[in-house]
């Protein structure tokens, strides 16, 4: 680089107009999640499968899968926001792990139990579930533009991946509220595939946008 560092400092100083510091990451994450949860609540209020949900909530693996998807979704988005600010601990990347493990473990238990009983009727929903998660998750990924606007992440790929995972798990949570039914291996596999697809999608579109 031909420019002298002292000259660069002088030039940057001349350009240094006052800037408004970003609001605290937790405040931004909280506001974003508040809007997402409010929209989801409206959708569930108007189109949710409340009767099915009430009958399934007493089933522990189902309830834990539901809670795991929500916890994983919220924590993935919080960790994405924390990592979007330089200097925050890289350990934030592990925040969604407990929720993700709960979701995955309870989902697999539910699948194994239903498969052992020969209850495979949920297989018929696999395609619809896949499309629902993609359809509900993609707008959340698009909305994260407002969440990350003004940030200059040094871990652009991780931030994009976590945002995609967060959106996907919240979409999987919404799916269980809208259409409550026991999972089968093929059906739950379609959930996992949709979550992975959204993560890759977010990385593909998010990384170049976020990269500094």
């Amino acid at each position, binding site marked *: 680089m031909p420019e002298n560092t002292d000259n660069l400092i002088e030039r*940057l*100083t*001349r350009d240094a107009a*006052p800037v408004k510091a970003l609001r605290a990451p937790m405040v931004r994450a909280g506001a974003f999640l508040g809007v997402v949860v409010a929209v989801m609540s409206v959708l569930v209020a108007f189109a949710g499968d409340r009767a099915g949900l009430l009958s399934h909530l007493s089933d522990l693996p189902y309830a834990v899968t539901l809670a795991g998807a929500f916890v994983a979704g919220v924590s993935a988005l919080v960790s994405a926001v924390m990592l979007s600010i330089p200097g925050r601990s890289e350990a934030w990347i592990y925040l969604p792990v407990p929720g993700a493990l709960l979701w995955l473990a309870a989902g697999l238990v539910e699948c194994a139990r239903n498969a052992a009983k020969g209850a495979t009727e949920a297989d018929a929903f696999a395609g619809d579930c896949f499309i629902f998660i993609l359809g509900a998750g993609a707008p959340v990924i698009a909305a994260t533009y407002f969440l990350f606007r003004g940030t200059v992440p040094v871990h652009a790929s991780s931030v994009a991946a976590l945002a995609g995972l967060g959106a996907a798990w919240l979409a999987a949570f919404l799916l269980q509220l809208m259409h409550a039914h026991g999972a089968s291996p093929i059906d739950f596999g379609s959930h996992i595939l949709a979550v992975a697809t959204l993560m890759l999608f977010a990385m593909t579109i998010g990384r170049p946008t976020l990269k500094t």
Partner: protein
Amino acid sequence: MQEPQGQSTPAEAQGETQTLRWQRLMEAAQSGDQRAYATLLREAAVFVRLIARRYHSDTTALEDVVQETLISMHRARHTHEPGLPVEPWIAAIAKSRAIDGLRTRRRQARLAAQLSNEAHTTSRQSADTEEGRFATQSQVIAALETLPPGQRAAVQMLKIQEMSLSDAARASGKSMPALKSLLHRAMLALRETLNGGRDA
């Protein structure tokens, strides 16, 4: 991870720690205090140099990292949260820019090797030895400097930063065919310069 500390300053001698001092300078800089900002950047440059030294031994590469970090700090200065220490914020940017610097140098070396292989067919000099590769990489960097700015930018974005054609077109404000043409002419000019250099 413990980050290296910058040089001690008169304020530190008066009992103000570097952490508090940089916090105060950063908050003043965010409010538009150019003097505070210049002081912060000058002191940060020393701190960044210490971090960059872990990744780069070459002085030019080291200074590139320092300058890239200062530019990134400038662009991202609104992302520092008032009330928090500035060192981790600077260190994260510096580490990221140092790793980017390593990638850039690897790409430069790859480009040099690619051009060297092509030149090898018309030259007696072997590019297979470490010495040969090093000389060729230096020659490529020097040859890049002789290119017109548009061609140099095309090589920088498409071959060294490995940006996609559409991203490079967006970043440069040029059309994709225009960029392709600039790159093609740049590669021809580089080959000619490097072959000419060897033949001489």
